[in-house]
Structures are given as C-alpha cells and as structure tokens.
C-alpha cells in the first residue's frame, strides 16, 4: 500500500527531525555559557523530545508491526533516519547552536501552522500541540540571533560564520519528492517547496535586524530526509543516544 508507506515516511521525517535536534540540543545540558541559557536549551530539547514521542508514536501505529516510539528511536540505524541534515550538524559554539535552532524553528513553525489544517486529525492534533511550543522556540532563537548578530564585533562575526556554515543545509527543508507529492495530494501535509517564500520573508526580516548578511549561494546539501546519505555526524550522535537500550535490551527505569 504505497500511500501508507508515504505517510509513514512523512511521520519519520517529522519525528526524526525533532529527535535528532532534541538530542543535539540536550548535549548542552550543564555546559551552556550561563545558567539561564542552560535551562532554556534543556527546555527546548525537552519539548522536541516530547514532540518526537507523538510523531514516532503515530509512525509506529501506522506501521502496525507492534513497535513503539522507543523502538523507532533507539533500534534503527543511520540509513533508516529521515531527518534533514541541518539538525544533525554539530553544536559548534553557542552561536552556531542558536543559528541552527533559528533556521530550523522558522521552518518548523511554518510547517506546523500548515499541518494544523491537515486532513488527518491525528497529524492536526500533534501540530496544534507542538506549534504552541515552537512559536515560543522561534521567539527565543530569533531574539537571540538578533542579540548576538547585532551585538559585539566578536558575536557578530561568529553569527555570520555560523550562518555561512549552516546555510547550505537550509535548502533540503524545502526539497520535494514523491512522498511530499503523495502527502500534498491527500491534504495531509503541504508541499515543502510551497513554504519557501514565507520562510525567506521570515528569516530575511530577522537576519536583517541582526545585521547579518544572507549568503548568495543557493547550493543545497541533501540526502537526510530521503536517507540517501547522512553526514558522518549522525552516526556519532546515534552511538551516544542509542548505546544504553542496545547494550541492555529491554532496560527500564
């Protein structure tokens, strides 16, 4: 049943994005520059992991092979992950982490707003819940991008460098393939390409307030959301994230 497969792929894309980014952000726990930022990052990670439970929970339900969200998170290998490359990129410095968060939050907030009117009631319910949290994430990452971009010479230079480093990974969020076409034709999810104009408006406004310059290049690195080729970073992340349930199968609290 091709449509169910496409739906499953779509749900994995949503859930793997939040899972991988949630894990990345949680790597800051106890290491952020100041306590308030540590708490903010931990809370953002928590929201993303919570959203992952809903997306991967639904993915497991649709798959109906008796698996749980945890099975999908912890027992799949790199090539089965469907997150965009952007979210698996390393944290770098605090500026790079915030820039990655902002570039993702902007896409995420537009995506969830569209998904609130999904023809699938379960998808609409998750989007409704998650979009409240993501609106808040975007407000914070956007404010911080402006604060640091339009900050000191040092912070400005670091934010510009972060933008240039991450920019090639933005395009993948708007790539469309057969899965997207199937989702769009059933009214389950928007064609990502149709969100690009809104995205450019949104980030253009904030990056300009941050006195940052958008790189010219439109070249996009791809291969995450279709699982064709992840970066080397994802495997390292998974060894950290998955070792416990793999070393001790069935372990519980």
């Amino acid at each position, binding site marked *: 049943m091709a449509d169910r497969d496409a739906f499953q792929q779509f749900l994995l894309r949503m859930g793997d994005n939040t899972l991988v980014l949630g894990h990345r952000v949680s790597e800051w726990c106890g290491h952020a520059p100041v306590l308030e930022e540590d708490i*903010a990052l931990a809370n953002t*990670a928590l929201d993303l992991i919570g*959203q992952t*439970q809903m997306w991967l929970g639904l993915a497991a339900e649709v798959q109906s092979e008796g698996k749980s969200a945890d099975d999908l998170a912890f027992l799949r290998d790199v090539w089965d992950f469907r997150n965009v490359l952007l979210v698996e990129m390393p944290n770098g410095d605090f500026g790079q982490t915030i820039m990655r968060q902002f570039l993702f939050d902007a896409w995420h907030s537009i995506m969830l707003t569209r998904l609130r009117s999904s023809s699938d009631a379960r998808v609409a319910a998750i989007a409704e819940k998650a979009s*409240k949290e993501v609106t808040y994430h975007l407000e914070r990452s956007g404010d911080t991008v402006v604060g640091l971009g339009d900050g000191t010479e040092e912070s400005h230079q670091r934010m510009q460098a972060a933008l240039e480093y991450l920019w090639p990974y933005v395009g993948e969020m708007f790539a469309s393939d057969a899965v997207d076409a199937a989702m769009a034709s059933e009214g389950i999810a928007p064609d990502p390409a149709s969100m690009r104009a809104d995205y450019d408006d949104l980030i253009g406004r904030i990056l300009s307030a941050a006195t940052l310059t958008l790189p010219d290049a439109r070249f996009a690195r791809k291969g995450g959301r279709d699982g064709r080729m992840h970066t080397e970073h994802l495997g390292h992340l998974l060894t950290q994230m998955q070792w416990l349930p793999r070393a001790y199968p069935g372990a519980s609290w």
Partner: protein
Amino acid sequence: MAQPSTDQVWDWLDAVPDPEIPVISVVDLGIVRDVAWAGDTLTVTVTPTYSGCPATSVIAMDIETALRDHGVRQLELKTQIAPAWTTDWLSTKGRKKLEEYGIAPPNPAGGPKHCPRCGSASVEKVSQFGSTPCKAHWRCTDCLEPFDYFKCI
C-alpha cells in the same frame, strides 16, 4: 461500595497536587478534561501541559494512587492531546494560589501584570524559560527579587 458521583471524583482530584507546583491541584491546572463512568469503569481524561513535560507521568501515577485510595477499583486513564492545553484552563482559584505562592499567573499581554511579592508593575524578563517548561524567569526592578512567571500559552 456505591459508585461515587463524578462530582465526588472531581473533588478528590482537586486534592491531588501538581507535583512541580504543589500549591495548585491537577484540576486547577486544567489538565483533567473529563471524568465519566463507563459501566463499572471510571474513565479520567488527562491532557499534557507541554509535550515533553516530565511531570506528566508522575501526574498520571498520583491521580491513579489517589483514586485507588478512595476505593476506585476499575480505572482507565486516557491521554488526550486535542484540543491542546491552554493556560486559559487554569482555574481562578489556581491563579490566586499561584500568585500567593510567588508565581505570577499567566497574562495574555505576554508578561506578568506585577511582581507577586511587592505588587510593583516594574518588572523585566530575565529568560524566556524557567525552572519548569511552564514557567519563565522574571525580575522585579523595585524590590529586586527574581520570580517565576507562568507562561501564557
């Protein structure tokens, strides 16, 4: 034992404290969405505050323990995510208790009305996130005390 009325069950639940902000009950928090009998089974529908809030599973356990202590034998706890929880569902009593406890209640304007300690309206945001997912960190510029603000969502 005769089947307790749903009103009775609501009263019992109103005595179950929120594990992270124990001055308010799970009913004050607005997360108990429905209480109903289906034959001999009591169904309690709960909605999470934030999707990743670690208190959610503790709350479910506390509700179950409280109802079992009151003699409810057959209990089903349902989780419902739609409609999504909103701070509009906080009870008036809950808002008052939050403020007395030193947490500024949610305000649609996007920030606390005044300092819960001295009442001054001169307040400033320290951080958008606080000690739990539902709170932000603010400070009073008159009495200089920091305080939690219950985020409005």
